């Protein structure tokens, strides 16, 4: 997978491309951890994401808990496939999806 990150002041945008699965989840986690310092607005752009498995959901949950204390987090450009994953798992209720 490829992960693009864009940090402008207190705003961080992360754009993962490909799949977030058991193999790639550590890379996704690292991209967030390496850039999260001082961030108050986190945007995760799923436009180029094919799918996410539970390994990736674990990271979204951990990150959401962190950002609830530090500022805001939203997920944008969510495809039907990934929206279904969020619906099935109830993540639709704990994430901010636009």
């Amino acid at each position, binding site marked *: 997978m490829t992960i693009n990150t864009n940090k402008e002041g207190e705003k961080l945008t992360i754009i993962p491309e490909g799949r977030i699965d*058991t*193999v790639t989840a550590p890379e996704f986690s690292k991209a967030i951890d390496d850039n999260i310092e001082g961030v108050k607005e986190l945007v995760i752009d799923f436009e180029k994401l094919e799918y996410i498995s*539970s*390994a990736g959901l674990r990271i979204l*949950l951990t990150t*959401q808990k962190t950002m609830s204390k530090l500022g805001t987090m939203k997920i944008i450009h969510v495809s039907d*496939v990934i929206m279904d994953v969020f619906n*099935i*798992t109830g993540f639709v209720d*704990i994430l901010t999806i636009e």
Partner: protein
Amino acid sequence: MEITVPATIENVEKVTGFVNTELDKLGCPSKAKAEIDIAIDELFSNIANYAYNPEIGKATVKFEVQNNPQAVVITFMDNGKPFDPLLREDPNIKLAAEDRDIGGLGIFMVKKTMDSVEYEYKDSHNILKIKKHL
């Protein structure tokens, strides 16, 4: 059609590639394909993490097609410790983020997205079979 590989996390991608090649031949819709790929990630990583740990054993993934109605059946086999992932209690998906525990979410997704999921322990093998209508 089947593939046998060492049951390691890295081989999730090899198994996914094997199955996707077959799904593409069938013209599988992208949503079903993504759901199947997620199921492979959840189930094969389970085998990699639990079946033989700390040793590394082998796992076989078999791909079959059924007709009328068209469905694919994917069978995961390993001869590691007996482990039925279906016995795991479903997670509470209504809890707030602070109270959430991620455990069990993977197998829960598989149960919700596949048309059937069956486990059996036979001849010293864990056999987990998923079926998805295309």
